């Protein structure tokens, strides 16, 4: 007879940020795949390359499942989260590449290039991004406006493709951030490091015997510390706040400290540094490079970003070499006290975020930059995996992987994506496109292409489109009212949350009181039963006696 196995709930399943966030781009990937297959018959060579790349990508996605399971088995969930994050970012770039290639590059290739004086291809172009690449569809300059081919409006295609991709990225990031935050911060007690937490955080993923033994000893140390006096964590946290400058020594010092505050301080300083670098670069590009009318300035910015992407890749390799390989050599041969290094998840994730920021900024100036990013992430996965297995040991502390992941997604959204989006928006809105190249030649700003198009739309047929454009997109009053409504809603929901917190404390008290009531009633029942029994016995004795 068949048994009823675990019944599945009828509602939605619980899925992590990587699963949920890849769903919308994944759906679009397959949709665009179908579109691309029909267009394949028109252009030949580059599309055959594209098809091979996609096939390889699909196979490696399944290949990576086994590698990631192996990493999770040896090093645990927190290190695995780095590789899941890398795979998630790779999805963004694959989607971007497909969208850009399909809607911008293919029409341009079909209508033919109008670039003269082609230089020959030398190998150096892969690193510098100049030379032969300057004339290819890699950069903004090779795309022409709509005067040449009136059937496909290249200006609108360029603008709307990039805008649609960035909007989808924003939606995906906000969704993952919100669901991750709700799961890991709101529903959990973020402040306390409880003993239950430690016990229930046993990582069942870890199957390697040595790793299991190490985790057991680490857990024992943590439990010992937890059961000691309450003053120690407080003092240690205070110390961590006061000594931020000695960050590298800190990682060697306190084994038992509250690791969260320490890690957050290090991460925030790192983020500030990287964002300042990018901010200064963007300022330089916007103010100095973009003002010159003589050259194709978008191409120049595109080339600089291309070079940045390549150089960043080399620095990631060097960082891996020094941070992991050399550190292991020093730790085992020269200063044995240091030991084998742990895989520094925070530093590596921040490097990934920086790399992705570059790609997002570059997408307007170099539509095919995602290809380089894809190759870069692909190689990085294997390099990091090899470095991890050769040089690193499993982490000593059972880190709070889920909460760190929320923090990383939030970092990816706020400084990284929003910064890149602001820069692209500023370029599109305010800067004058160069006159000699690109699809927006001759216009005052890139956005003017949309305004001109709106004017040319047939008023009688598409009245509603024009109405939406006039009253909502270009009207400031609409956005002001929208912001006001959203602020009111936020305040409203915040008040509901406060009320619910109060309700929780009241209900907890009620449970305790009911427990006490139950104990009281049981005691009373026991007493009554005893009294009843003794009464019955007494009566029986009395009834028997007269017979004598």
């Amino acid at each position, binding site marked *: 007879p068949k048994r009823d196995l*675990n019944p599945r709930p009828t509602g939605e399943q619980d899925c992590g940020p990587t699963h949920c966030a890849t769903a919308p781009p994944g759906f679009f990937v397959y949709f665009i795949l179908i579109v691309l297959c029909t267009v394949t018959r028109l252009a030949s060579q580059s599309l055959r390359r594209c098809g091979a790349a996609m096939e390889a990508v699909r196979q490696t996605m399944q290949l990576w499942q086994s590698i990631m399971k192996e990493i999770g088995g040896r090093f645990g969930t927190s290190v695995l989260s780095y590789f899941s994050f890398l795979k998630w970012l790779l999805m963004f770039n694959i989607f971007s590449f497909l969208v850009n290639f399909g809607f911008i590059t293919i029409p341009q290739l079909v209508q033919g290039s109008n670039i003269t004086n082609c230089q020959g291809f030398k190998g150096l172009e892969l690193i510098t991004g100049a030379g032969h690449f300057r004339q290819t569809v890699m950069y903004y300059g090779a795309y022409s406006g709509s005067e040449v081919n009136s059937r496909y409006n290249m200006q609108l295609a360029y603008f709307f493709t990039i805008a649609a991709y960035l909007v989808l990225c924003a939606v995906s990031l906000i969704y993952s951030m919100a669901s991750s935050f709700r799961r890991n911060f709101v*529903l*959990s007690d973020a402040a306390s490091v409880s003993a239950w937490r430690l016990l229930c955080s046993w990582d069942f993923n870890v199957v390697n015997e040595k790793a299991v033994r190490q985790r057991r000893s680490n857990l024992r140390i943590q439990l010992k510390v937890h059961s000691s006096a309450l003053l120690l964590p407080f003092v240690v946290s205070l110390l961590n706040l006061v000594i931020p400058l000695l960050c590298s020594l800190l990682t060697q010092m306190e084994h038992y400290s509250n690791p969260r505050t320490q890690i957050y301080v290090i991460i925030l300083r790192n983020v500030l540094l990287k964002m300042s670098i990018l901010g200064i670069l963007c300022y330089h590009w916007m103010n100095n490079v973009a003002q010159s009318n003589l050259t194709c300035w978008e191409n120049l910015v595109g080339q600089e970003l291309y070079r940045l992407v390549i150089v960043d890749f080399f620095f990631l390799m060097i960082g891996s070499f020094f941070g992991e390989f050399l550190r292991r050599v020093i730790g085992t041969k020269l200063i044995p006290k240091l030991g084998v290094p742990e895989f520094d998840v925070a530093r590596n994730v921040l490097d990934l975020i920086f790399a992705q920021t570059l790609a997002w900024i570059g997408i307007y100036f170099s539509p095919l930059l995602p290809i380089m990013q894809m190759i870069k992430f692909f190689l990085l996965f294997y390099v990091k995996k090899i470095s991890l297995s050769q040089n690193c040991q499993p982490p000593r502390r059972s880190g709070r992987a889920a909460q760190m992941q929320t923090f990383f997604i939030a970092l990816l959204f706020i400084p990284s994506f929003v910064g890149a989006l602001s820069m692209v928006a500023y370029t599109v809105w305010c800067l004058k496109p160069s006159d000699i190249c690109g699809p927006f030649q001759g216009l005052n700003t890139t956005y003017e292409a949309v305004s001109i198009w709106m004017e040319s739309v047939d008023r009688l047929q598409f009245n509603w489109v024009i109405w939406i454009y006039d009253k909502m997109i270009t009207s400031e009053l609409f956005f002001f009212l929208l912001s006001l409504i959203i602020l009111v809603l936020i305040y409203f929901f915040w008040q509901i949350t406060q009320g619910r917190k109060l309700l929780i404390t009241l209900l907890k008290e009620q449970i305790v009181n009911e427990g006490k009531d139950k104990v009281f009633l049981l005691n009373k029942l026991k007493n009554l039963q005893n009294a009843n029994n003794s009464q019955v016995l007494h009566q029986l004795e009395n009834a028997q006696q007269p017979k004598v």
Partner: protein
Amino acid sequence: MGTTASQLPKDLLSEYQELTFLTKQEILLAHKRFTELVAKEDRNDPSPRVPMSKILTLPELKSNPFRKRICHVFSTSESKDGSLTFEDFLDLLSAFSDSATLEIKSHYAFRIFDFDDDGTLDRGDLEKLVNCLTGETDDTRLTPEEMKQLINNILEESDIDKDGTVNLSEFQHVISRSPDFVSSFKIVL
């Protein structure tokens, strides 16, 4: 592909897919790994039962400190010897899979931690739990004072109705506030 896929009939496969959280590939892989463990003389048995000693040779369970408890919890044998049929094995993988809900996982975690199977986690269960996680040998255990202090902390934090034991609802309440639990409580073949 191969003879294992043909051994599991299609209607059974879709039925298992309906009743568990596993995907088709996961069920087929589980079937393959399970039939490797079945003894030769039981091969023709319609629903073979694999003894616990063989289940514990699986690399995913070999080093797990809770391996024996897991087998006992998912076993349906009358003799309570921890042996598993294929459906028990699927139950196990389903509860530990990626898509299982928090309620299912916390329910099974509770049963695994309940060493004396009495439906609540009392001091004895908690002591065995801590010893299981910190190690069996004498030099890796906690001292009795540390153990007492730790269990007092645990009970103070999770025993809401103050009856000295942690029942299923209290356990689930504590678990729901631990966001790492869902990603840690996972075994994938």
